[in-house]
């Protein structure tokens, strides 16, 4: 009897023994893929490398866990040391080749000295030792002196970096072929790795690579076309190192080396000349510098200013939108500005433009006029008016009342002023073609003056890339000289007693300190003016000190604008108020000095000497006073020395007395003038207090009324009392006039 098959009961049957299901393409293919990976055709080289890699992965673990002894017979007495290698290594890296040679020697001798220093390398050496025999032939066949340690280090680097194995192999091949390329690539690799970990980059420190480029590779870079991408990467890495210098620097390498490499890279990448890049590096911190340079590569957005004499911003915006222009209000700070994003019609040729309802004007050009804020019925002078944007803005603020004189030295550019004035419907303007420096003679007594001085144009590089390479030291100084003359003329054209005004706004489209703060500071010294708030609540404050120069603290009230931070052309605005119409020709000391300079030239020196002798023993207390002086009065003691123009009155530098006295001994000429009265004062100082020194400084401070508080009032009085005048005259008589 057999088992009956019951048809009603269905027994589920799975796949039979021989049944084969398709599991899906992936699973099927994975078999093949695996198979492919297996017998990858590695060369003997690659095979060995692979083995090494396998070994090396084990070994670091071993190292970290327990500093095992060495595997060779010297393990008993050889003790691996701690990892102080970085410093030691870097010191030694400078003689990399010799180091390698030593190590090779050590290998042979099982040298202990170096081994203590290079634990890792020892391990590598051990590794290498194993291979020595195998690879010896291949090394020779390579034709290159690739030291085993270099190879090992490279491998380790590869392991720490996250590159796929195949790439490494390729890299290795390439690298082995060309040492030089190796260096460059390693520059980049190294910098990246440094950022990632603090691993010891055996023998390939970043500093080392920077140095080598300086010598041979930099020269090569000049000849070869360095890939812009590489340079850009290098710049970025360099900036990163500089920003976190203490953490990321390489020992033994100075900041200046990094900076010099950065400088040359920036010059190449952004096409600037060395001078300009150096100047920019002085003004900006490194990270901001990159932003600034990037911002200079692209255009600032197009902005227009509504002409409120003819229309309102709302209506104009509507009309333009109907024409197909995409626009937005400029910002909270302006009620008349509009920024144009894009337009289907040329924005400079719409009927609205032609009928004078708006004017194409950069956003930064709004600022000086807003700072000046001319009132209705005033008389205003615009000394450098072309092409007329600021002039017309002033006219619209004044509602066509009062009077505006628009002046420009360039007759061709005046045509654009005429055109714009007529187009925008300005009726209260007079246009003339004078050199700004002649202005006080022509006409004076204006309520307000705007001086948009001609400059080097370093703020508008995005508009004119020629500035990048075309400007040098001489250009900047020439501009600065012209600006100083112009600002003095401008100040003289203002009527200090004006009931509503007495203001001057000085602005430039440059970011150079020589053209901005320096010029304003010069004006503060030379005339009875003071700085007042511009009324612009955004923007960066002006510099009070810059490199070796020190400016008046009120320069904080001036404003700087940058393309990368405010998204407008680089600009500088300073508002000055004239306090008195009298021109301080020169302070009393220098008056005397100059008048009697020639006569008592010889005698003064004699006088100086005995006094200076007196000074010397008392020099130490004076020095401390000097220190105080320095703090009290931000002085530009260096600038008079620097800018030795004919007749430059060192009237301002009594505080330099002691310094200048010493210099005077040396020169015997230039600082005689200031030295002399200072000597007199010095005599008193020796007797008197340090406060009196302050007095002397602050005498000059009659110009800086802002800073002079009660102290200075008293001091001024004191000054009058002990006026060196009388004593000086006595001396004169003594000497035998």
């Amino acid at each position, binding site marked *: 009897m057999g088992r009956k098959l019951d048809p009603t009961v269905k027994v589920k049957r799975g796949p039979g023994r021989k049944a084969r299901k398709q599991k899906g393409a992936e699973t099927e293919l994975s078999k093949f893929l695996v198979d492919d990976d297996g017998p990858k055709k590695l060369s003997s080289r690659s095979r060995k490398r692979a083995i090494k890699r396998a070994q090396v992965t084990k070994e670091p673990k071993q190292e970290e866990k327990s500093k095992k002894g060495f595997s060779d017979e010297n393990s008993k007495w050889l003790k691996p040391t701690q990892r102080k290698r970085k410093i030691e290594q870097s010191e030694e890296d400078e003689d990399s080749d010799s180091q390698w040679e030593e190590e090779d020697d050590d290998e042979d001798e099982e040298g202990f000295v170096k081994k203590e220093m290079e634990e890792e390398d020892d391990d590598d050496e051990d590794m290498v030792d194993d291979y020595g025999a195998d690879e010896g032939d291949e090394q020779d066949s390579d034709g290159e002196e690739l030291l085993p340690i270099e190879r090992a280090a490279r491998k380790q680097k590869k392991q720490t970096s996250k590159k796929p194995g195949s790439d490494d192999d390729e890299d290795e091949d390439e690298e082995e072929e060309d040492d030089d390329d190796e260096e460059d690539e390693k520059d980049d690799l190294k910098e990246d790795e440094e950022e990632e970990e603090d691993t010891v980059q055996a023998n390939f420190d970043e500093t080392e690579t920077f140095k080598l480029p300086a010598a041979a590779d930099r020269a090569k870079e000049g000849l070869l076309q360095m890939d812009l991408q590489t340079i850009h990467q290098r710049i970025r890495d360099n900036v990163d190192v500089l920003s976190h210098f203490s953490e990321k620097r390489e020992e033994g390498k100075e900041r200046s080396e990094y900076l010099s490499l950065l400088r040359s890279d920036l010059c190449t990448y952004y096409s600037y000349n060395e001078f300009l890049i150096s100047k920019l590096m002085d003004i900006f911190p490194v990270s901001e510098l990159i932003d600034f340079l990037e911002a200079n590569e692209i255009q600032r957005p197009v902005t227009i200013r509504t002409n409120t004499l003819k229309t309102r911003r709302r209506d104009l915006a509507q*009309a333009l939108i109907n024409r197909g222009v995409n626009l937005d209000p400029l910002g909270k700070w302006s009620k008349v500005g509009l920024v144009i994003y894009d337009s289907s019609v040329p924005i*400079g*040729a719409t*009927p*609205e433009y*032609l*009928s*004078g309802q708006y004017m194409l004007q950069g956003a930064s050009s709004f600022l000086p006029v807003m700072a000046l804020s001319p009132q209705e019925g005033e*008389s205003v002078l615009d000394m450098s008016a072309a092409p007329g944007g600021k002039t017309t803005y002033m006219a619209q603020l004044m509602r066509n*009342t009062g*009077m505006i*004189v628009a002046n420009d030295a360039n*007759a061709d550019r*005046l*045509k*654009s*002023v*005429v*055109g714009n*004035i*007529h*187009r925008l*419907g300005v*009726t*209260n*303007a*007079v*246009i*003339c*073609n*004078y050199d700004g420096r002649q202005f006080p003679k*022509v*006409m004076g007594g204006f309520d307000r003056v705007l001086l948009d001085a001609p400059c080097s144009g370093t703020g508008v590089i995005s508009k004119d890339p020629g500035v990048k390479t075309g400007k040098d030291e001489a250009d900047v100084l020439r501009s600065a000289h012209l600006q100083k003359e112009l600002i003095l003329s401008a100040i003289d054209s203002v009527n200090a007693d004006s009931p509503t005004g007495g203001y001057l706004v000085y602005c430039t489209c440059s970011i150079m300190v020589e053209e901005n703060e320096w010029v304003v500071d010069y004006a503060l010294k030379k005339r009875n003016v003071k700085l007042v708030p511009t009324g612009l609540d955004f923007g960066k404050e002006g510099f009070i000190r810059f490199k070796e120069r020190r400016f008046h603290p009120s320069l904080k009230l001036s404003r700087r604008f940058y393309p990368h931070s405010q998204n407008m052309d680089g600009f500088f605005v300073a508002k000055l108020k004239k306090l008195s119409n009298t021109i301080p020709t020169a302070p009393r000391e220098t008056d005397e000095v100059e008048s009697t300079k020639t006569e008592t030239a010889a005698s003064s020196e004699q006088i100086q000497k005995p006094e200076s002798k007196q000074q010397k023993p008392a020099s130490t207390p004076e020095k401390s006073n000097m220190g105080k002086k320095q703090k009290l009065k931000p002085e530009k003691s260096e600038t008079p020395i620097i800018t030795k123009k004919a007749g430059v009155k060192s009237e301002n530098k009594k505080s330099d007395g002691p310094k200048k006295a010493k210099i005077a001994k040396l020169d015997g000429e230039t600082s005689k003038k200031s030295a002399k009265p200072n000597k007199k004062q010095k005599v008193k100082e020796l007797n008197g207090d340090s406060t009196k020194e302050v007095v002397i400084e602050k005498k000059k401070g009659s110009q800086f009324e802002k800073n002079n508080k009660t102290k200075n009032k008293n001091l001024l009085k004191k000054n009058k009392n002990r006026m060196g005048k009388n004593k000086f005259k006595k001396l004169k008589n003594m000497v035998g006039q």
Partner: protein
Amino acid sequence: MRPLTDEETKTMFEKLSKYIGENIKLLIDRPDGTYCFRLHNDRVYYMSEKILKLATNISRDKLVSVGTCFGKFTKTQKFRLHITALDFLAPYAKFKVWVKPGSEQSFLYGNHVMKSGLGRITENTAQYQGVVVYSMADVPLGFGVAAKTTQECRKVDPMSIVVFHQADIGEYIRSEDTLT
């Protein structure tokens, strides 16, 4: 800078009255002060007396422009009105012409106005009457001379000229140099 002679004044006022008729006195006696015309380098400038005083300080060769330039006298002492005078003509204009949007651009390029581009025209415009040309949005575009009377304009074919172009605001771009 000197005041206009009688003859020059006559010539100029004749020209102006073609466009604004007897409203010329409104130009001279304004509520905000007295205005005057002065001649400088063959050009006539319109300015208020306050500006006149200050402008006298500037030497002749350095002075470029004062107030608003109305036009210039040609070598044969004919007066030519410039576009820069538009702001003063437009509010007092007696006869006006409105141009359709399509032919606005054409007029701004310096072309005459054709019947097809004519939007509106004031009644009773005489032939060869000075007119001020406006866009449909009442923006003054320039001025010209009517080529046809209003009646004739209605009858004439679309391609015929109705207003001769004399000056338009496109000149600010086209001929910036000739403004001074």
